[in-house]
């Protein structure tokens, strides 16, 4: 790849590669087929610290910069994007805590998570997907507590979350200004885990419905102030998009690597298909798009790291990288021909995995609204 990396970055990418190739790759076919959540493998990943890469060192996390994390998640996703998502998802909900939480809250959450655990980001609802302002899950103040009520859907790692960051409205009339964000521990009474999604891709990841039935949390679990929830969610989503872009790049790079290997070996007319210009150009186009997406995404990570505003750039990166990954993986299936369509080869899975990146954490249509909104402001 055409990126300059420091020694730490090279070593961590190598570590991610070794871990994924040795521990995860041998099981992917089976896990993908069954749609199982390999909890034991995630626990192994916790031991290496992949689940708290962005948590500050003073809270026990690894404290990596955004660019390094982007390199690492790309490498993880190169082997399996679903595993990469579930293993590193904590970064998104923890960003809510690290940016808006009190010192006690940061300590509290990290102490629970650093030894090994999942945090979920419970924002999406059936009628509040891309339009986060339409949240119908409610919270009401009751003395020193808040009581949360309502359903959530498509919650990644929901079934296994040790802590949930839950978004609920204190005043449905107030739209986005009514949303509050809470730290909700998994053992709070009234948390129900609903149906598990049977997804097209990311099948090593867990996605499920949740229901909060009069779940009582102390007021000290409120992040920021009442009504700040939307701002909290959006700022966390910004950095989440950078990492999503990096993972989409990983999927595409993995597909390109598969194609290079395959096209050198496959000889339907006596010569390897790699000797055909039609295939060569497809490979070149994949590489062009991948490198462009990577440069774009790392630039956004630099902006974020430097403390610059990067909402638009995060949206651009996520959109470009995910559209690119869809395109590249579709072409990869084409390069493999009939075998590409077979589950015996890895490229069809990459194509299934890539699709969600155009959809989740804000569809690419919403991203374009964010981008054009920023342009026309």
């Amino acid at each position, binding site marked *: 790849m055409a990126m300059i990396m420091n020694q730490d970055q090279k070593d961590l990418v190598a570590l991610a590669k070794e871990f994924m190739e040795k521990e995860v790759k041998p099981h992917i076919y*089976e896990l993908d087929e069954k749609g199982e959540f390999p909890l034991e493998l995630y626990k192994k990943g916790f031991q290496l610290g992949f689940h708290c890469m962005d948590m500050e060192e003073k809270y026990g996390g690894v404290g990596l910069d955004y660019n390094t994390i982007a390199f690492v998640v790309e490498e993880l996703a190169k082997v399996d994007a679903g595993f990469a998502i579930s293993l590193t998802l904590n970064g998104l909900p923890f960003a809510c805590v690290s940016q808006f939480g009190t010192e006690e809250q940061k300590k509290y959450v990290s102490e629970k998570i650093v030894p090994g655990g999942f945090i979920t980001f419970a924002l999406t609802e059936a009628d509040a997907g891309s339009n986060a302002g339409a949240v119908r899950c409610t919270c009401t103040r009751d003395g020193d507590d808040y009581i949360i009520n309502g359903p959530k859907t498509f919650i990644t790692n929901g079934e296994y979350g040790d802590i949930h960051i839950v978004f609920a409205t204190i005043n449905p009339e107030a739209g986005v200004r009514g949303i509050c964000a809470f730290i909700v521990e998994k053992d709070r009474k009234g948390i129900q885990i609903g149906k598990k999604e049977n997804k097209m891709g990311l099948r090593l990841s867990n996605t499920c419905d949740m229901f909060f039935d009069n779940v009582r949390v102390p007021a000290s679990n409120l992040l920021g102030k009442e009504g700040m929830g939307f701002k909290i969610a959006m700022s966390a989503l910004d950095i989440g998009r950078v990492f999503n872009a990096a993972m989409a790049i990983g999927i595409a790079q993995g597909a390109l690597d598969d194609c290079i290997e395959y096209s050198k070996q496959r000889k339907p007319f006596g010569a390897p298909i790699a000797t055909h210009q039609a295939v060569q150009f497809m490979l070149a186009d994949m590489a062009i798009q991948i490198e462009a997406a990577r440069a774009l995404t790392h630039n956004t990570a630099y902006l974020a790291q430097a403390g610059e505003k990067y909402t638009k750039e995060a949206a651009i990166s996520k959109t470009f990288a995910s559209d690119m990954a869809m395109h590249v993986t579709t072409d990869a299936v084409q390069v493999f021909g009939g075998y590409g369509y077979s589950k015996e*080869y890895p490229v069809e899975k990459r194509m299934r995995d890539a699709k969600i990146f155009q959809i989740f954490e804000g569809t690419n249509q919403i991203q374009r609204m964010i981008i054009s909104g920023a342009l026309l402001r």
Partner: protein
Amino acid sequence: MDKSLYKNIWVYVELTEGKADKVSLELLGEARKIADASGEKLVAVLISDAAEKAAEEISCANVDDIIIVSGEEYKHYSTDAYTFAFTQLCKKYKPSVLFMGATDNGKDMAPRLSARLDTGSIADTTELYYNPETKDIEWTKPAFGGNLMATIVCDKSRPQIGTIRQGVFKAALPVKKENINIIKENINTPAEMIRTIFKNYTANESTADIKIEDAEVIVAIGRGVKNQEQIAIFKELADMLGGTIAVTRPIVDCGWYSVKCQVGQSGKIVSPRLYIACGISGAVQHTAGMTSSDVIIAINSDKTAPIFGFADYAVVGDMFEVVPALIEEIKSLKGI
């Protein structure tokens, strides 16, 4: 050092339950040739509590002399006692060469002894050549995972010590020479000198169920096998070579073998010493799991099969005819 002071070819005959190990007999066979070439004596050295009994067997292995060291302290191998005994023997008799089998204990003792005698030791060799001009043994051994062979000499010191792998040479002819000297050496290793004490030994359970990742030899079958009865001939080949059967995806899908035996992208990655692919076309999905095997043999009737691109030996022909002929011929060549 004056190398000419050192004479004779020694073979350390390792005993298991009183019987000479196969590798020791093989070494006696090869060492005989070297001794004849160099005009020296072939001496078998026995160190064991059962040495005297075993000398009978060894006297029929075309040797000139036998040196025996016996005693209770040699009942089980220990680095200290055996190295001590050999050191005494080497100092007294000054052999030119000391061959040992590349067994676990042979490889434990040879380097230790060489360091004590300040001489060279060459490990795990597979070829020996006596150079009549230099009077050195030229030892050849594999290195770099078998990618390279190195020829090594111990040209500055004596004795020349080395371990040799089993199965490289033919066993000694059953010849009993006349006037064999059987020399009993009385060497006692004081108990306090022996720092490692043997406790117990457990033999491995039947090796019938070899994991394919651990197998030295793999016979792999794929789509070419149409029914379960056809597998028998490949099983026979695998058994004969001390290996195991591995399969490709379609065979697993048929339910004939478990996924544990599957080689390839969705199965196991294997790197045996010998991989025999029978009727496997060589799709990437499969080859991803086997290309690092040391030697690859592919048998396929389709001469354009991609598997041949990976093969060291590409046999074009119907595997159901090739394999039985292969088995018969190996049996007759190896005298099995």
